[in-house]
């Protein structure tokens, strides 16, 4: 049995806003009968605000819960805010979903995105998804590169298993797994989140003190951090290092490499 949060259980037991809106302004659709889950999201939009939302879902408990909570999340909200809702927001609002069920939150978001695209196509020109490619990567579940890219970026996915849990891609015949791996390599963030200037200074200082200086001290040298300006780190080599003719080598091959490896790969070390 899946471990569902109380909120998920509440929403599949008592789904909110079930049904259709006969005079809906837009209807967003996602999934298919063949794939095992599908969703129709009906939106009523007035003066740029979602005034009503209803849904019809074919799917499991978490698919119904994702759809149900999504309607609650959008009702009364201006379109500009609704646009920013991601699948991660839907999952968060449900107090989380089991990893294997994250694709249900993705389906909810896809239906919302589909609805907004239709809305903007009618209302104003907007680039919600105009510039997207729609290459199908997984033919079993009809999953496009866009969907995979977005799942990677929004949820910080890094493995094949993640992609399957979130989008279903690769979950059937598995022939697209190589393709998916390429997309992971292409879109997944390999670096940690960008550090603030203060965090950067602290981290650089720490690496110099704890890693670099002790190594140089072994050879009778030392290093002093003079200044940091964006990606440029100004240092002064001391002791035996200062007179060593290989100091440039030390600087580039050891100090800079270590800092690039431990802190950020765009660091440049300059001797003052």
């Amino acid at each position: 049995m899946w471990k569902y949060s109380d909120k998920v259980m509440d929403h599949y037991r008592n789904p909110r806003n079930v049904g259709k809106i006969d005079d809906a302004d837009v209807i967003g659709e996602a999934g298919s009968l063949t794939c095992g889950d599908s969703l129709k999201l009906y939106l009523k939009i007035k003066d740029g605000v979602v005034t009503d939302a209803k849904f019809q879902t074919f799917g499991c408990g978490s698919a119904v819960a994702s759809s149900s909570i999504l309607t609650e999340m959008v009702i009364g909200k201006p379109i500009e805010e609704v646009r920013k809702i991601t699948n991660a927001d839907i999952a968060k609002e449900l107090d989380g979903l089991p990893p294997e069920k994250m694709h249900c939150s993705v389906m909810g978001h896809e239906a919302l995105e589909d609805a907004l695209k239709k809305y903007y196509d009618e209302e104003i020109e907007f680039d919600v998804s105009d510039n997207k490619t729609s290459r199908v990567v997984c033919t079993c579940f009809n999953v496009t590169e866009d969907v995979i890219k977005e799942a990677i970026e929004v949820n910080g996915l890094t493995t094949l298993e993640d992609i399957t849990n979130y989008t279903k891609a690769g979950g059937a015949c598995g022939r697209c797994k190589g393709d998916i791996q390429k997309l992971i390599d292409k879109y997944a963030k390999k670096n940690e989140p960008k550090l603030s200037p203060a965090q950067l200074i602290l981290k650089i200082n720490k690496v110099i003190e704890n890693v670099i200086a002790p190594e140089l001290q072994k050879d009778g040298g030392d290093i002093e951090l003079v200044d940091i300006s964006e990606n440029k780190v100004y240092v002064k080599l001391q002791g035996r290092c200062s007179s060593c003719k290989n100091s440039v080598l030390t600087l580039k091959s050891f100090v800079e490499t270590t800092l690039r490896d431990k802190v950020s790969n765009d660091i440049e070390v300059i001797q003052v």
Partner: protein
Amino acid sequence: MVIYLDNNATTKVDEKVFDEMLPYLKDEYANPSSMYEFSVKSSNAIADAREQMRDFFGAKSEREVIFTSCGSESANMAIRGAVAHNKSKKHIVTTKVEHPCVLNTYKSLEKQGYKVDYVGVNSNGELDMDELREKITDDTALVSVMWANNETGVIFPVREIGEIIKSKNPNTLFFVDAVQGAGKVDISVEDTQIDMMGVSGHKFHAPKGIGALYVKSSVILPPLITGGHQERGYRAGTENVPYIVGMGKAAALAKEGLKYEGTEVKRLRDKLETGILKATYNSRLNSSISNRVPNTTNIGFEYIEGELILLHLSDLGICASSGSACTSGSLEPSHVLRAMGTPFTSLHGSIRFSLSRFTTENEIDYVLEKLPKVIEDITRISPYQEELEHLRKSRAKCNGGVCNKGNCNNGKCCESD
């Protein structure tokens, strides 16, 4: 309250089985191989259980019974042993609807260079006998089929299959996975061409963790687990005395209960099945009507999804299972129902109810009282309201509103009426 209708997944341990086991979990703990008086009771208990299993299998000799840890081990030992026995042959025939423990064993043999043919089934879940006949060649080391399918309960004609195999190639070995037949129908190997047959104790009211394999005396299998001399060298490891005793007792009780299974359990199953098909317009039977074990029914609910049905049933204390992708963890719906060509409209909403001799009439009545509302509520959420309305109208014209598929072509017959 638990209404347990998932007896093809596992069964409750019979009190009588438990009582029989208890002494061997407490005072009679001797290793049956030891050389003192204290161990005699343990070794006698195993001998008695072996005799009970021999009788259950309809085997000629108790030497044809090997105790294993489960159905999967029985299948692995038989399959891997059979190909080792028929070393020069590199071909295997099985079916598309076998249990994963069998299918995945074949997948691993394919990687070792074996060619495996998977014979298909029709929309009733019945085996394509012509295809089976065609596939057997001089190079066929092994044919393996299940006695009854775990998802649909459909019985394969193992006697006839055995005759076909031996008439085409007398050297081909025949393995039957009888895990889902045991305790539901007579699984005697007498007068059949079965060479090996596996069962699992927990499917017929023994505990989990014990199984058995019938191996015809003329077939020599290498052990899967090497070590001591237990099971005459066929399966090393100190005998699991209490569980072996328990399974022996469970087998004896199962044999006694076969008549009850075929009459009373069948009556309750039929009552449940007909009741559901009548009370819900968007349901259809996913198998043949007649050729089934008496405890199983597999019903597809169209345009709704199985996990959601199970979750709602669970809230009512009702335990069943589903061929839906969402419950399997694999994202793909049941390989059995797909092999049968079950339409996508009902594939994801397929629910299996499996009864046992402990199922009561009250329980069935309770399910029949509660289930229609569950289905109605879930159907109301479905995005396929137009299709459902069309289905409701066409089903109303057809067979009293019941699609029992006896004369139904994948649910299409109702629409053409």
